[in-house]
């Protein structure tokens, strides 16, 4: 029995509606409780900002794609080198660091839960193995279903229940958490060397449209009662004028779930572009944010771009090919059999580049124009927009108009005529930042009932204590203090243990992986479906019995069983 008492913490806990109240937090065996005995170890937080551990609702940190990013950019490993120290392993890398590098840097920023944004089902083992070596955060993986042949056929036949059954079988087999659609249909079209331009283009051979895919998978997701909604990377990423396509995709979504959103649209910055080409490229964050403001069934994340070097990686193969033609640098392309694909290229976002400057502004505008912070979460689509170590800077930009103006002076001079950012006065407060970085993420992922993203008794004791006094720091003027404070916690507590202190990680850690096993009736058990089995026999390079990820690959398995309507 281990007890810990955090005294005099200035707590912001949006899921409980606590905003800046000084209180004590009692922890018993890794969970938050009402009170502990006098024998408990005591931490005096001295009025410092204390929030639930950070929840990153969309990041790419583990899996074949990330690893290939490391593999093709050995020069990235020259940055961010740290030697072995205490409990910490040596790390290296900046935009695609080693797994320990990711884990330590997230932990030092107070993050305790991470969602890997895209896991190809066939390559799930790799993701889970890397999860094991991301020891200081609980992890979960969105599973890619955008080009799954069996699902595309079921959609063509109009059989949503079969779509749900295939998702259920696959999630359970690969120990996945949520359903990810990346450029639905487009990645499959890429296997014919084509793409889809928007939601009404049919996918070659299957003759279903992205709109049909999105709609049926959203319905299937709700049939399965999954904790998270469908996680969508819209079609036509990164193309001037693509905001109409994004709005069209959003328009397909009914409000089906009273507890959470029905669609999580990720890195919307990359999908909020106006103009007919790069010459008249401009921001369309306003129509997107207005649309989101009117529809509680939508949650988006920023996908903020920050200037500097990074690596882009996505399952959206055709988009990465277009980027390659733009940059003419290294490029990797990968086809995942009957499921999806991927592409990777390294990029540099430059202040002197007009398009990059506009992209930078759009991400901030989305966060500032979306009225409810619960509907727009803080991400960079790490590492696509920027490595996650930039999160504190983004929070400071959102909290300070003065900081935004100072940065605006340094970017391309024509940006002002293309974006509404200079006219936006809004400055977010600590509570809103807490929503965007932890509570909102936990709610959107549907993991608040599992004790994430809040500090109520019974919750997992994941706590971040920042060396900031919120009544003494004026974020609007002292933005550097905000950046410094959010970059390095005084204490990061993970499941009741102090895992990081002032930039040092103290323990090896032991993370858990959340995954979902929907319970379906025997009629919908795809493991017995002859057509589904035949797909494996005829087309896959692995046998069906070798496909599921064994439990021993999952470190501290936390299985969520849902009762499906099948």
């Amino acid at each position, binding site marked *: 029995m281990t007890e810990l008492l955090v005294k005099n913490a200035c707590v912001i806990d949006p899921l409980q509606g606590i905003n800046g109240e000084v209180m004590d937090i009692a922890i018993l065996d890794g969970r938050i409780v009402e009170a502990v005995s006098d024998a408990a170890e005591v931490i005096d937080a001295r009025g410092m900002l204390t929030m639930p551990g950070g929840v990153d609702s969309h990041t790419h940190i583990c899996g074949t794609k990330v690893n290939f990013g490391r593999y*093709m*950019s*050995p*020069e*990235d490993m*020259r940055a961010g080198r740290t030697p072995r120290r205490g409990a910490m392993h040596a790390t290296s890398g900046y935009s695609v660091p080693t797994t320990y590098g990711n884990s330590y840097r997230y932990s030092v920023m107070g993050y305790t839960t991470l969602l890997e944004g895209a896991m190809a089902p066939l390559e799930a083992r790799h993701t889970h193995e890397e999860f094991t070596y991301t020891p200081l955060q609980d992890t979960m993986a969105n599973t890619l279903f955008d080009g799954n042949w069996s699902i595309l056929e079921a959609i063509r036949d109009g059989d949503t229940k079969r779509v749900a059954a295939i998702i259920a079988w696959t999630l359970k087999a690969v120990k996945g958490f949520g359903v990810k659609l990346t450029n639905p249909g487009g990645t499959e079209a890429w296997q014919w060397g084509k793409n889809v331009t928007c939601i009404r283009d049919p996918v070659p051979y299957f003759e279903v449209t992205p709109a049909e895919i999105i709609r049926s998978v959203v319905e299937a997701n709700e049939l399965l009662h999954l904790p998270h909604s469908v996680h969508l990377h819209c079609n036509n990423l990164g193309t001037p004028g693509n905001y109409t396509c994004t709005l069209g995709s959003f328009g397909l979504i009914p409000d089906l779930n009273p507890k959470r959103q029905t669609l999580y649209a990720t890195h919307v910055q990359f999908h909020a572009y106006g103009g007919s080409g790069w010459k008249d490229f401009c921001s369309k964050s306003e129509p997107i944010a207005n649309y989101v403001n009117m529809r509680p069934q939508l949650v988006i994340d920023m996908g903020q771009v920050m200037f500097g070097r990074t690596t882009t990686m996505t399952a959206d193969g055709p988009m990465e090919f277009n980027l390659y033609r733009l940059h*003419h*640098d*290294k490029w990797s392309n990968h086809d995942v059999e009957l499921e999806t694909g991927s592409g990777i290229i390294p990029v540099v976002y430059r202040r002197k580049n007009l398009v990059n400057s506009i992209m930078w502004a759009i991400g901030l505008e989305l966060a500032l124009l979306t009225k409810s912070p619960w509907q727009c979460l803080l991400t960079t689509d790490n590492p696509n927009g920027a490595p996650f170590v930039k999160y504190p800077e983004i929070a400071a930009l959102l909290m300070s108009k003065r900081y935004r103006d100072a940065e605006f002076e340094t970017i391309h001079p024509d940006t002002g005529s293309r974006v509404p950012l200079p006219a936006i006065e809004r400055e977010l407060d600590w509570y809103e930042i807490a929503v965007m970085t932890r509570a909102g993420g936990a709610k959107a992922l549907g993991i608040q009932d599992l004790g994430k993203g809040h500090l109520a008794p019974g919750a997992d004791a994941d706590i971040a204590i920042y060396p900031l006094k919120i009544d003494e720091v004026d974020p609007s003027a002292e933005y550097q203090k905000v950046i410094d404070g959010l970059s390095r916690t005084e204490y990061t507590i993970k499941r009741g243990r102090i895992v990081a202190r002032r930039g040092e990680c103290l323990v090896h850690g032991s993370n858990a992986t959340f995954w979902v096993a929907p319970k379906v009736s025997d009629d919908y058990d795809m493991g017995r479906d002859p057509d589904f089995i035949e797909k494996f026999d005829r087309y896959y390079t692995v046998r069906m019995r070798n496909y599921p990820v064994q439990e021993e690959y999952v470190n501290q398995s936390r299985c969520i069983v849902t009762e499906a309507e099948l």
Partner: protein
Amino acid sequence: MKVTLAMKPATKGFIPIEAESIVPKNFLSDTDLSVWRGNRELRLDEAFEISVEGDADRPEDVEVVLSGETSRLKRVGEYMDGGKITILGGIGMHCGNFMSGGTIEIQGNADGWLGREMSGGTIVCRGDVADYCASGYRGGRKGMKGGKVEVFGRAGDFLAENLAGGTVIVHGDAGDMAGAELRGGTLIVHGNCSRPAANMKEGSCYVYGTARGMIPTFRKIGTVRHEGRTLIQFAGDLANRGKGNLFVKDYEYLD
């Protein structure tokens, strides 16, 4: 000021010594220098017999002379910005990395990565050099950016890979992929080499011998006179939308 470093014989002669502290400017002050042998840190005088003659105020006036089993030494002259290093024998990998000024003279052979990513200064090697001489880092975009490397023997593979500036001259033959990804500067190979200037973007590559396995994506322009030689000029690499110039005495395509 002349600093002579004679390597002491080692019982385990196969363990390389990482000696990035051997740079002329480090001998101006009396600070204790150290080198690493495997995972052990050694004081400089544990690894070398040191003798110093004269005095100096500027790195330019310092000459370091290395003798003994120096081919075990790695990273000698890393980040060097002035002065001279003379190596009486051979030298190990990564000699003259990132150097920006001064001179390194190697009487023997040099191992891989000689003068990697250097931006100035001169390296002269009287013997042969191994692979990746005057090249870039793995995965990096720019190799050597300035200065001069002259090799009197032969060069290994990937000579001047990613060369972005400066001059590289090899008097013997070079190996495979000489001047791969060339994007500036000048590479001159007096002997033969294979697949020169593959995927070049800009810059010039001269092969005074035969270019074997000539890359087919170069466009032949005609013959030119160059320093008393008649060379065949090519433009390319077309596969990389390149605007580079490749001059060869003779060439043969792969069968």
